[in-house]
């Protein structure tokens, strides 16, 4: 994985000292909260429901064991012994003291981490495929390109005060595991008929109160023009994006109102102009970055058989491991979704265990999934049983990847000052309901996503089943949505009808799965059945 050079480290170290001084001046009363707020947000420090919250960037979700250990130490030393992995492949801590913030950033900098670009109207932490570099279906590892874009976007003076926040995802396979088309810019590295690599640009997607799926504005940008084209996309947005209304300020609104064709025309014109300016970094820089993402030394001839005599282990293998490009290896997913647990939360002790297991079994590497689980990307099949045993003993062995128990849930009203309703208790009760009725396995792939407000951090628009918490005269109420997908078959979920109470929404989810069981045909997922039969059978079952 990428290692800081002297410039990266100097930039991050300088930022730590700058923020330490800003926090000191705030505590001494030399800065008002209005003056300090934009400064702390530029360093990932929010003021949330119970305390300050620090969001730490994990570029494209990739960590080594030393970094995971550092995150665990921060949880113990400065927080309350746990952290929350987010839908943007980051981690956040909920109980931070302002007086500790500088020390925390210094601890992060020691392991080449920071909290820059995890808030504010800038280009946020760039996300990617959590199986990058391990999966056989990619044309190339997308992470060097994500890293190049990270370096380009970090502190970019032109893009530090955009109309709104800006999110970029980079993938390199036809299977979309990063919700690429629901980003401000989604980039898919593709290969043309001549065997050349290029980047397909999808611009103007997003969730939030106005969900949109990004249209493709250019199917093939040469990779040695990647940054130039991205800069052209940003420039047109920066020039025309609305700043008078924050609810209409995201690029999706601009692309929608301007029209994709006109937006593309303007991007192409800006691109032509930028080509003359020569803003593309030298190719040698990309080559330098790429050297950090070379394959680890896989064992030649590693055994391809798995002893499945332990039935619980066999279930976990079937559910939580994913095919690897290298014979004898898999990617193993550590579920942070125990039945009745809090999606995405991990204790410091669990983080340390995951770090140690990554060191022992996965070439020192971990990935954070946007679905709030952790991946060990390169595990020998021969090591799987030992890995699973250690995970299971620590409460990390839930075999529920991509099932109805594998729920994305935002922090909701339990932690978030923007939320209107609690998300986590709904996730807990649904996972408990399905674990009790024994349907989790039989329902197959079923992606359930819960948001506690219209900002949609829980991706409810993109759930096969989505739940949106709303405030109805001071009482929590939950809308049910069906038919969303954030994969390559991206679609936006539709609301079934009137909302439900806290008890009612759990029953409602079970009801729609009963309709699915009744109506499904061979091999169909919930989403397939919904798309075939439409909303009406589900509405009839829900509302009579």
């Amino acid at each position, binding site marked *: 994985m990428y290692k800081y050079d002297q410039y990266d480290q100097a930039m991050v170290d300088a930022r730590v000292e700058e923020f330490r001084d800003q926090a000191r001046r705030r505590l001494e009363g030399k800065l008002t909260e209005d003056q300090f707020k934009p400064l702390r947000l530029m360093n990932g420090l929010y003021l949330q429901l119970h305390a300050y919250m620090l969001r730490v960037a994990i570029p494209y979700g990739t960590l080594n064991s030393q970094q995971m250990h550092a995150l665990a130490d921060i949880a113990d030393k400065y927080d309350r012994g746990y952290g929350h992995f987010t839908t943007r492949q980051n981690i956040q801590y909920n109980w931070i003291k302002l007086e500790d913030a500088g020390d925390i950033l210094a601890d992060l900098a020691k392991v080449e981490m920071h909290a820059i670009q995890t808030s504010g109207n800038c280009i946020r932490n760039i996300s990617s495929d959590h199986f990058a570099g391990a999966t056989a279906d990619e044309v190339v590892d997308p992470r060097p390109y994500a890293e190049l874009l990270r370096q380009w976007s970090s502190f970019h003076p032109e893009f530090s005060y955009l109309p709104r926040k800006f999110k970029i995802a980079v993938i390199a396979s036809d299977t979309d595991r990063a919700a690429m088309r629901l980003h401000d810019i989604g980039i898919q590295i593709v290969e043309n008929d001549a065997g050349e690599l290029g980047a397909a640009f999808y611009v103007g997607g997003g969730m939030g109160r106005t969900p949109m799926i990004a249209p493709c504005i250019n199917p093939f940008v040469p990779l040695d023009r990647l940054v130039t084209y991205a800069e052209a996309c940003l420039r047109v947005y920066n020039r025309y994006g609305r700043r008078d209304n924050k609810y209409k300020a995201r690029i999706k609104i601009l692309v929608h109102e301007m029209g994709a064709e006109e937006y593309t025309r303007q991007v192409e014109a800006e691109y032509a102009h930028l080509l003359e300016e020569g803003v593309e970094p030298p190719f040698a820089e990309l080559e330098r970055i790429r050297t950090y993402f070379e394959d680890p030394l896989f064992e030649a001839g590693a055994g391809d058989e798995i002893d499945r005599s332990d039935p619980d282990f066999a279930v976990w293998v079937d559910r939580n491991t994913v095919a690897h490009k290298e014979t004898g290896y898999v990617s193993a997913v550590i579920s942070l979704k125990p039945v009745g647990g809090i999606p995405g939360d991990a204790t410091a002790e669990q983080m340390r265990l995951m770090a140690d297991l990554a060191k022992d079994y996965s070439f020192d590497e971990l990935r954070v999934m946007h679905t709030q689980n952790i991946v060990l990307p390169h595990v020998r099949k021969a090591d799987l049983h030992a890995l699973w045993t250690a995970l299971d003993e620590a409460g990390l062995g839930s075999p529920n990847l991509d099932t109805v128990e594998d729920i994305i849930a935002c922090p909701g*009203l339990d932690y978030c000052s923007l939320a209107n309703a609690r998300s986590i208790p709904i996730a807990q009760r649904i996972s408990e309901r399905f674990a009790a009725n024994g349907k989790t396995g039989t329902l197959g792939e079923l992606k359930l996503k819960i948001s506690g407000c219209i900002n949609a951090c829980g991706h409810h628009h993109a759930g096969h089943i989505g739940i949106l918490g709303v405030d109805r005269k001071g009482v929590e109420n939950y809308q049910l949505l069906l038919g969303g997908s954030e994969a390559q078959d991206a679609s936006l979920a539709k609301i079934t009808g009137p909302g439900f109470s806290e008890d009612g929404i759990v029953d409602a989810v079970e009801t729609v799965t009963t309709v699915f069981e009744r109506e499904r045909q061979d091999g169909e997922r919930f989403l397939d059945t919904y798309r075939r039969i439409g909303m009406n059978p589900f509405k009839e079952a829900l509302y009579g």
Partner: protein
Amino acid sequence: MRLLTGNDLKTGAVTWWTGSDWSIHVEDAADVAGSEDEIARREEAARRVNSPYAVDAELQDGSPRPSHIKERVRALGPTVRPDLTLKPADPEIGNWVI
């Protein structure tokens, strides 16, 4: 009744104006109806509180209970982590929030 709340500047902890000081316990909160703006200005200027604002509340069993669920969650702590709330030993406290 109206309560004045904010966060402690150093720790971020939720605090409530008691009439003479700030407390992390909402049951200590005083009715500030009519004087909330003046107290908020004074206390924020003295850096004894961060971003204060007033909320509606009712008296329940002699103690103030914020009218909105968000403020009740703020007052107590996350409902999903009773061990981290201000009253981890009280099994009935969830009923106060919801």
